[in-house]
């Protein structure tokens, strides 16, 4: 006579599956794997104008003046 309801073998399989799914559910929630990944990065705002600065530097020393004089040695 055929057994009514679930067979022992089916129940064993169901129990194993239940354990596996419980483990999966715990891992899934623990590692937050159901978090939605944002796929809309929005719009990068563009600018129509940009500036940059540079600098020019110089030191202007007074002109070197050469003046060749002579010293007279006057002896009395």
């Amino acid at each position, binding site marked *: 006579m055929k057994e009514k309801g679930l067979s022992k073998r089916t129940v064993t399989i169901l129990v194993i599956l239940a354990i596996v799914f419980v483990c999966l559910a715990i891992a899934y929630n623990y590692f937050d794997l159901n978090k939605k990944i944002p796929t809309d990065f929005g719009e990068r705002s563009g600018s129509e104008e940009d500036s*940059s600065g540079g600098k020019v*530097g110089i030191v202007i020393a007074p002109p070197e003046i050469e003046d060749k004089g002579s010293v007279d040695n006057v002896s009395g």
Partner: protein
Amino acid sequence: MSVDKTQLIGYIAIIVIILSLASIGMKFTGFATTTDAGRVNITISSAAAINFTTDFVDFGTGSVSTGQPNATVDTEGTLTGGTGWSGANNLTLENIGNVNVSVGLKSSKLASTFIGGTNPEFKFRVINDSEHDSCVGGDAWTYTEFTLADDTVCTNFPFADDRDEIDIGIRLVVPSDSSSGTVPLTAVITATGTYS
């Protein structure tokens, strides 16, 4: 009525499986099978961005030679009528944006306030040496006097990597009666990139 333990465990297992699946977000829907496409949205707007990658020209210390009315020094190695000043490097301007721009150049000072003296000159010119054809259009291939307002030196300054750099040469004519001293004289050069 007697309860079969094996049957009870089996049904509890089924309930546990359903609850586990529900907790990870599985839902029963009317769809047997379906395909769907994911989509990633990003919009990149045009952005003008320029940068002086070499932003300082330092001629150092020097003087006009005795008897000379003036001295000329530039960033291309010229030094006449003076001593001491070194041929500094050119300024280098790079288009770091993602769109071609027009470039305007101006200075914070005119030659008369920067150097002083009789007939001073404070000039620049655009040099395409490092990357050919970087600067298209414009009127500053020869030395041109700086002004306080933007002078358009390139009507089209590309952003492509092999054409996004220009050198800017600087030339000064220092009169013998110009401001002198030990304090460095400085002028700020501003480049403005615009796209429309």
